């Protein structure tokens, strides 16, 4: 009976996708679960019961409208169940998903689990056979940050360049498509795919390697590649922004999941930095150095047609990124304000860009972190960089933020109840020496960095992190909570007026979403560096969080902050699930 219902829902989703019947705006969705999968859940009588896509919804709110757990009773929150996937190299970094009473998640080495969402009992697991020699040679590996659900399948990318579809009920592979020649390029997939209509969309790794950062559209039924968009010099116009053959130095990977605007049938995706990270030409970057020019479409937000992969429009947040401040990080928060349909997107450098959804024209740019000196400012009307600090060959002191960014790759959250955007900011800087390296023009198994550096405290103070609740369009701050070290995990906002913050020391904390007052905490025993969601199963609301430490940003904590990070394991992690007692 359950299977028949699932098949019915899958069919319903397909029909709605094809007809566009699922299209809805932020203002009328009333929650974070709109989009095609939410349409099926709504039909099932439980809109908001599930969490069916990486960012919680196509609007990237990371918001659950569920209210059973709220500010009045959150102190009664306790562990319901725990699941250990084993072999959690670099910790669990993924965002679990829930559909129809089943929790799906992926661990390191692209291992996928399906568990009963109410009890944690395993239903099936799938461990792909990977190229172990390749994995051993990869720097940004072997974590996998998420999956996509829909059309009766679970979709997962692998670090050796494949996209795999598994039957949601059995875990049996439906198709397995090789998309990236990882053996040649070193990089593969670590980010979550995004299901849009009948396409699975996924971006490859790659900021520090000589690839062209492709984003792929794959037919969800057959696994056949339908399109591929090259984020490095992918159009004639873009090719002209790389001097000579310098486009071969590459970069630009769209290594995190993007979002989808159903009203305009537009996929929004962020791209990574160009290689090498640092450019010895300094202020002469338009004419000399390893990659002269603006280097389109690196460190950009790009808008693609999900049916064809064609570029509709874009905005390059940092022309000729010379600091490794990706646009691949973070969410695309879609909301309406004063008749305008907006999208809010954080950039790793510490600024938040607000765009008009119709064309990516800049509506505002505001600063989330205090310690920024890689530019003096960014014009809030045009997005133009003002007073950029280019870094010629030699030593430089106190560049802010540090290479780890003013914001990291995990996501913030937006609550339509409070109207506030909750986001972590990172306050740290670094000293560096830019090195004239040999340009890497051919794919090879090594990074292309171009500098030696040391993270440090900002001048006059210590490195730290903060959570703030702000107006997402103006950046006006309503409240802020400081942390001795920047939290690195994603945030969750709920209809129960709560904001959950999994912190690096291992505490999962809940705050009053209106005031920032801490109302609950629990020690998970190890740092957090992954996702957090809320869902309902068998009438109860749950909070599920990924635990585990050891991301490339977290790896810096031992040297900068000491214990508990020096001794924190980097090969452990679990899904820990909470409910009311």
């Amino acid at each position: 009976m359950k299977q028949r219902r699932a098949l019915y829902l899958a069919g319903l989703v397909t029909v709605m996708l094809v007809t566009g019947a699922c299209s809805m705006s932020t203002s009328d969705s009333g929650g974070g679960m709109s989009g095609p999968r939410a349409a099926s859940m709504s039909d099932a009588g439980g809109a908001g019961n599930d969490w069916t896509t990486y960012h919680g919804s196509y609007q990237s709110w990371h918001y659950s409208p569920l209210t059973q757990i709220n500010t009045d009773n959150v102190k009664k929150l306790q562990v319901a169940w725990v699941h250990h996937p084993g072999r959690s190299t670099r910790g669990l970094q993924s965002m679990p998903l829930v559909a129809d009473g089943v929790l799906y998640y992926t661990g390191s080495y692209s291992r996928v689990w399906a568990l009963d969402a109410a009890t944690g009992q395993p239903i099936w697991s799938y461990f792909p056979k990977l190229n172990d020699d390749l994995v051993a040679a990869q720097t940004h590996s072997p974590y996998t940050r998420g999956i996509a659900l829909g059309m009766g399948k679970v979709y997962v990318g692998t670090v050796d360049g494949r996209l795999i579809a598994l039957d949601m009920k059995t875990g049996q592979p439906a198709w397995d498509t090789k998309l990236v020649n990882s053996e040649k390029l070193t990089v593969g997939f670590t980010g979550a795919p995004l299901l849009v209509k009948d396409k699975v969309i996924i971006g490859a790794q790659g900021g520090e390697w000589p690839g062209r950062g492709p984003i792929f559209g794959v037919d969800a039924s057959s696994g056949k590649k339908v399109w591929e968009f090259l984020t490095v010099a992918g159009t004639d116009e873009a090719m002209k922004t790389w001097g000579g053959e310098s486009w071969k130095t590459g970069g630009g990977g769209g290594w995190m999941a993007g979002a989808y605007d159903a009203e305009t049938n537009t996929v929004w995706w962020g791209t990574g930095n160009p290689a090498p990270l640092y450019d010895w030409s300094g202020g002469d970057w338009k004419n000399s150095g390893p990659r002269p020019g603006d280097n389109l479409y690196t460190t950009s937000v790009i808008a693609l047609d999900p049916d064809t992969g064609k570029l509709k429009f874009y905005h390059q947040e940092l022309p000729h990124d010379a600091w490794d401040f990706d646009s691949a990080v973070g969410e695309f928060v879609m909301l309406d304000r004063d008749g305008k349909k907006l999208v809010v997107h954080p950039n790793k450098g510490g600024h938040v860009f607000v765009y008009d959804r119709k064309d990516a024209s800049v509506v505002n740019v505001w600063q989330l972190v205090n310690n920024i000196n890689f530019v003096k400012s960014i014009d809030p009307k045009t997005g133009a960089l003002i007073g950029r600090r280019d870094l010629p060959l030699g030593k430089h002191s106190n560049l802010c933020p540090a290479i780890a960014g003013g914001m990291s790759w995990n996501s913030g959250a937006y609550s339509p109840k409070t109207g506030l955007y909750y986001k972590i900011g990172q306050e740290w800087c670094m000293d560096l020496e830019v090195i004239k390296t040999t340009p890497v023009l051919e794919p090879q198994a090594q990074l292309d960095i171009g500098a030696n550096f040391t993270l440090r405290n900002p001048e006059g103070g210590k490195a730290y992190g903060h959570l703030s609740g702000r107006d997402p369009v103006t950046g006006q701050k309503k409240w802020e909570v400081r942390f001795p070290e920047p939290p690195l995990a994603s945030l969750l906002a709920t209809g129960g007026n709560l904001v959950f913050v999994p912190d690096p020391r291992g505490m999962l904390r809940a705050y009053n979403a209106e005031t920032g007052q801490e109302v609950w905490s629990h020690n998970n025993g190890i740092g957090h560096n992954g996702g957090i969601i809320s869902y309902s199963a068998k009438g109860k609301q749950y909070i599920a969080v990924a635990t585990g430490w050891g991301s490339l940003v977290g790896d810096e904590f031992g040297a900068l902050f000491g214990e508990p990070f020096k001794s924190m394991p980097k090969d452990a992690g679990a899904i820990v699930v909470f409910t009311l007692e």
Partner: protein
Amino acid sequence: MRLFSVRLGLALGLLAAAGRPAPVAAQSPPAASDESLDGARIFGSTCGFCHQAGGRAPGRGPKLAGTQRSDEFILNRIRVGKEGAMPAYGRAFTDKQLHALVSYIRSLKDDAQ
């Protein structure tokens, strides 16, 4: 088709706000030479991401200046890596490049940073 889509974008005025990207003069990056055996360059390209201050300070990876490890240990660690901590660079570098890296590490003074 891509050209078409870009023209469409231009027609919509999508690039106006932040200024259009300026085409650059055709110019190739510097050609490679014996630089490929310069240990400091190799380190700055690949290793400095984790071993901070050019190997003089700990970061993602340990400080290397003044290491008591043998050359054989260092060569093997670079070739084979360490699961979850350091990639295997055995296929990335030639033996000469590996030895150049070891020479660079040995040249680091332990009093810096």
